[in-house]
C-alpha cells in the first residue's frame, strides 16, 4: 500500500513537472531561436558561437548584434530571406553545418584553403589576420620565430590553431602549443604569465585587450598570416545559385561603401581593405 502511494505520488509529481517544463520549453524556443516572422519569407538558418564581439555577440535581450550580423541582415533582406539564429559551442558549429541543422556560419569564419576544399564560400566581407597577444612588458616576442620554446595558447580547432601547428611542424616543433576549448580564460592566462602569448585575430584581440583592461598588448604591426572572412555553405547544386546571389549582394555592399560604414561602426580597425595578393 505504502509503495503504491509513493509510486502514484511520484508519478503525479513527475508528470506535472514534465507538463510544466514542456510548456516553458516551447515558449523558450520560439522566443530565442526564432525571430517572429511572417511565413511567406524564406528562412536562412545561421549558426554562431555568439561569443565573438565586435563581429557577433548577443545583447541583454538575447538579440544578436555586431558587424557580421548587420552584413548578413542586409544581404538576406535584399534576397528576401529571414534569418533564424542558432547559438552553439564553436566546436559543434561545423558539425551542425554538415548535418544540415544550419545553412551557414556567421562567426568571422576565415576562408582557409582547408575549408575551401570542403565548403563553398561567399565573397569575403572582411579582411584581417593573426596577431599575438603578449604581456605589456614583453620585449622578447617580436616575430613568430621568437615563439620557439614559448607556451602559446590557441583556440582549439580554429584556423589559427591549424596555422600554428603547421608552422611548428615545418620549423622544428619548438613552440609549445596549448589549445583551449573556448576563449573565456585565455587572455587571463597570458596576463597571469601561464602563457607567453595567445594567438588571435588582430581585430578581436585589439578590442578585447581594451575592454577587458588587462596588462596586455599586441606584438607588432603586421599580420602573422592574412585571412579573408566569408560565409561558408555546404557544397551542393541547390546552394550554388543562392550562393552566387548572396556573393553579389556582399560585393554590392563592398562597392557602395556600406561595409566600410559598418566596419567603422563596430570595429576599431577598418576590416574592409582587401589584402594585397
Amino acid at each position, binding site marked *: 500500500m505504502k509503495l503504491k502511494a509513493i509510486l502514484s505520488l511520484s508519478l503525479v509529481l513527475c508528470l506535472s513537472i514534465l507538463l510544466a517544463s514542456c510548456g516553458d520549453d516551447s515558449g523558450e524556443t520560439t522566443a530565442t531561436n526564432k525571430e517572429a516572422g511572417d511565413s511567406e519569407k524564406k528562412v536562412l538558418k545561421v549558426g554562431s558561437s555568439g561569443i565573438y564581439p565586435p563581429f557577433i555577440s548577443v545583447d541583454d535581450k*538575447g538579440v544578436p548584434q555586431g558587424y557580421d550580423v548587420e552584413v548578413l541582415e542586409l544581404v538576406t533582406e535584399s534576397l528576401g530571406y529571414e534569418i533564424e539564429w542558432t547559438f552553439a559551442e564553436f566546436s559543434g558549429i561545423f558539425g551542425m553545418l554538415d548535418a544540415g541543422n544550419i545553412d551557414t556560419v556567421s562567426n568571422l569564419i576565415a576562408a582557409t584553403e582547408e575549408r575551401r576544399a570542403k565548403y563553398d564560400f561567399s565573397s569575403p566581407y572582411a579582411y584581417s589576420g593573426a596577431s599575438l597577444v603578449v604581456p605589456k612588458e614583453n620585449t622578447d616576442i617580436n616575430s613568430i620565430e621568437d615563439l620557439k620554446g614559448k607556451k602559446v595558447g590557441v583556440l582549439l580547432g580554429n584556423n589559427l590553431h591549424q596555422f600554428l601547428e603547421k608552422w611548428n611542424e615545418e620549423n622544428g616543433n619548438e613552440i609549445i602549443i596549448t589549445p583551449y576549448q573556448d576563449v573565456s*580564460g585565455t587572455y*587571463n592566462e597570458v596576463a597571469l604569465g601561464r602563457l607567453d602569448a595567445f594567438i588571435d585575430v588582430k581585430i578581436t584581440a585589439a578590442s578585447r585587450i581594451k575592454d577587458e*583592461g588587462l596588462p596586455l598588448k599586441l606584438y607588432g604591426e603586421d599580420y602573422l598570416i592574412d585571412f579573408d572572412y566569408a560565409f561558408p555553405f555546404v557544397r551542393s547544386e541547390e546552394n550554388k545559385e543562392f550562393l552566387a546571389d548572396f556573393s553579389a549582394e556582399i560585393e554590392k555592399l563592398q562597392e557602395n561603401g556600406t561595409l566600410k560604414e559598418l566596419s567603422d561602426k563596430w570595429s576599431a580597425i577598418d576590416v574592409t581593405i582587401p589584402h594585397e595578393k
Partner: protein
Amino acid sequence: MKFDFEYMISLLPKIIEFLPIVLFIGTLSFLLAILFGLLFAVLTTNKIKILYPILKVIISYFRGVPTLIQIFILYFGAPQIFPSFSSMNAVTAVIIALSLRNAAYLSEVFRSAFLAVDKGQYEACLSVNMTKWQALRTIILPQMVRIAIPPSGNYYIMMIKDTSLAFTIGVIDMMARAKLEAAVTYKFLEAYLMVGLIYWMISIILSFLQSKLEYYVEKPYRKEEA
C-alpha cells in the same frame, strides 16, 4: 582586473531565465534513465539469452564513452547512417544521450540494490504461498527503493549539471547564456561564478527533497514514536 560583484548579481535574472530548460532536460532524462535502468537491470540479472551479451556491450559503451562524445555521435553521426535521424532536434538528442548513459549507470545501482536484499527473504515469501510478483512488489521492491535512493539522487544532480553540455549542439541553457553574456563584457569569472552558485542552489534543494523522500521510505525502520 577587478571582481565586479554588482555585475555578477545583475546576471542572476538573465541566467535563471534558462532554469526551466535545465530542469526539463535533467528531470525528463532522469525519469527515462530510471525506466531504462530498471529494464537493463532486470534483463542483466535474469541473463536473458542473446539480449544479455548485447546489453552488456551497450551498457559498457554508455558507461565508457564521455557524455559529450555520445551527444556528438548521436546528433551528428547517427543522421549519416539513418537519414531520418536528422529531423531530431537538439533537445531530444541531449535527452536521449543523457538518459541512456545514466540508465547504464543506474542499472548497476538497481542491480546492487536488488542483490543487497537477502535472497532468503524471497524464498521465505514463496514458502508462505506468495506469488513471485507479490514477493517482489510487497517485500523486495520497497527495500530496494530504500537502498537505491541515495545513489540515484547523486545521478540526478549529476545529470542536472551535465545539461550544460547541450550548448555544444546549440541548446541555450544557463551555462550558454552566461557565456554569451560574458563574451560582451569579458567578465567570465563573474558569469561562471553566478552559474555555479545557481547550480549549487539547485543541488541543495534537490538534496533536501531527497532527504525528505528518504525519511518517508525509512518509516518501517523507525521505532514508532507515538
